[in-house]
């Protein structure tokens, strides 16, 4: 029992630290990717290629003036960012990153805990996140904030319907609410993933669209439509209180991407079994990346590339070598596949932000109720019928 508590605490601190780092650097990745989509360099002054930018942002935000306006409802005004960030960070505790591994004689799962209703837990926690936004909008006592908060709550609860219906379809196939067992049913080859079962790509598309709306991302970022509502529900927030809403948004993005990977893309499972060499994919990818980076550093297009590129190339080559150590492979390979899939979904989030314009509000609500909801319902019934007939 004692070793269980120690292992749990170590796992929690590792996951928490990794999550905070990823949160900080997701912001950097997003700014860089959008900058390159718009043909500009993005952040590049603070550290090499702007890599210290997140740190600078945190220092700036913490030392900004912490304003509590006199006309707000103080308790709810302070509770809103607290609630948003707590709920956003809580749902990571049931996400599985990999199978059972052995560390120094102890067997443990690469997951904080496996609740047997993990899917419902995540849905419930993410619904609690709506409170943060609704309370922020109402307690600010500002017309823009109130409108933003109302819009946001209406949008989030409307898109929760197609989201939960789209989640139910892969559950029909896997027949479990435990996220760990959900992945175990998708083991083996690529076509065992729920995405490639019959017409499940319909559920996947509905899930992704609803997920964009749930996390208030473009093209559904109506709560923060700056040309009509200034900054929406967080107009009256400053310094770290303002930043906590962004942290919550990014944490929700990560959770939703993890959910998409676990439900549809087979979680930590490789696209094909290790017997056919899927274990060497990360080695090849990192080695090629390392060689290209070093080559670019030796033939620099810009002067500073000569100093910044080779260290990165060496790091990539070291990572490639680490993936060859047999002792570490059992833990690193699942983690690699999980991170690669989640990263791909997160990149999709950023890519779409750089590509699409924003919906109009009546279009947004009409789309949720008149298109997504009936389609999700019919898709669920058709999935049920197909399973009843063919299995």
């Amino acid at each position, binding site marked *: 029992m004692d070793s269980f508590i120690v292992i749990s605490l170590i796992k929690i601190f590792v996951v928490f630290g990794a999550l905070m780092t990823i949160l900080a650097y997701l912001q950097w990745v997003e700014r860089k990717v959008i900058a390159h989509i718009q043909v500009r360099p993005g952040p590049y002054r603070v550290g090499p290629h702007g890599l210290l930018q997140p740190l600078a942002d945190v220092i700036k935000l913490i030392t900004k003036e912490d304003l509590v306006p006199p006309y707000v409802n103080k308790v709810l005004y302070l509770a809103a960012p607290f609630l948003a*960030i707590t709920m956003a*960070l809580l749902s990571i505790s049931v996400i599985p990153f990999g199978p059972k591994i052995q560390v120094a004689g102890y067997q443990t799962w690469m997951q904080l805990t496996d609740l047997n209703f993990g899917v419902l837990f995540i849905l419930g926690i993410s619904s609690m996140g709506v409170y943060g936004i609704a309370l922020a909008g109402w307690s600010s006592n500002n017309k823009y904030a109130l409108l933003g908060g109302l819009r946001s709550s209406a949008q989030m609860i409307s898109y929760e319907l197609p989201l939960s219906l789209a989640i*139910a379809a892969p559950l029909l196939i896997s027949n479990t609410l435990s996220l760990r067992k959900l992945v175990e049913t998708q083991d083996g080859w690529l076509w065992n993933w729920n995405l490639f079962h019959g017409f499940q790509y319909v559920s996947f598309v509905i899930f992704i669209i609803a997920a964009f709306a749930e996390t208030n991302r473009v093209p559904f970022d109506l709560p923060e439509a700056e040309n009509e509502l200034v900054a929406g529900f967080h107009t009256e927030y400053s310094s770290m*209180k303002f930043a906590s809403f962004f942290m919550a948004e990014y944490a929700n993005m990560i959770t939703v991407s993890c959910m998409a990977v676990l439900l549809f893309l087979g979680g930590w499972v490789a696209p094909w079994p290790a017997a056919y060499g899927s274990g060497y994919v990360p080695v090849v990818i990192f080695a090629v990346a390392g060689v290209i980076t070093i080559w670019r550093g030796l033939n620099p297009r810009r002067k500073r590339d000569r100093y910044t590129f080779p260290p990165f190339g060496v790091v990539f080559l070291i990572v490639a070598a680490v993936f060859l150590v047999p002792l570490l492979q059992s833990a690193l390979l699942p983690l690699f596949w999980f991170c690669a899939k989640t990263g791909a979904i997160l990149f999709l989030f950023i890519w779409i932000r750089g590509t699409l314009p924003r919906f109009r509000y009546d279009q947004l609500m009409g789309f949720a109720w*008149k298109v997504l909801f009936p389609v999700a319902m019919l898709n669920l019934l058709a999935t049920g019928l197909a399973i*009843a007939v063919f299995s």
Partner: protein
Amino acid sequence: MPESYAEQYFPVLVQALLAMALAAGLLTVSYLLGKRVRNRVKDMPYESGMVPTGDARHRFSVKFYLVAMLFILFDIEAIFLYPWAVVYRELKMFGFIEMLVFVVPILAGFFYIWKKGALDWSPDSTLNRKR
């Protein structure tokens, strides 16, 4: 790995405490570090430079209330589908027909509110309907 309830929920509890500590810590640190300069204009609600008239506690569109009501109806339906989905392989065709009996009346209700215009947000389509 059979686990007791305490073992299953212990990590969730620790994670919750950690998240709350982080949230409270961040808010406190920025409260302690940030310098404060108050003036009359800063203490007004931000309305793009206009002098605010009245506070924000106005009546807002009844549509939002309607959406909340419809959401409760249909979300309860969606939650009922989850246990059905988990045991579906044992029920097969029986389960499908039972679920049709449950879903079809709800879908009928859905198309009724659609035709009634409860899902329309733009004033144009509502006006056209009345003509």
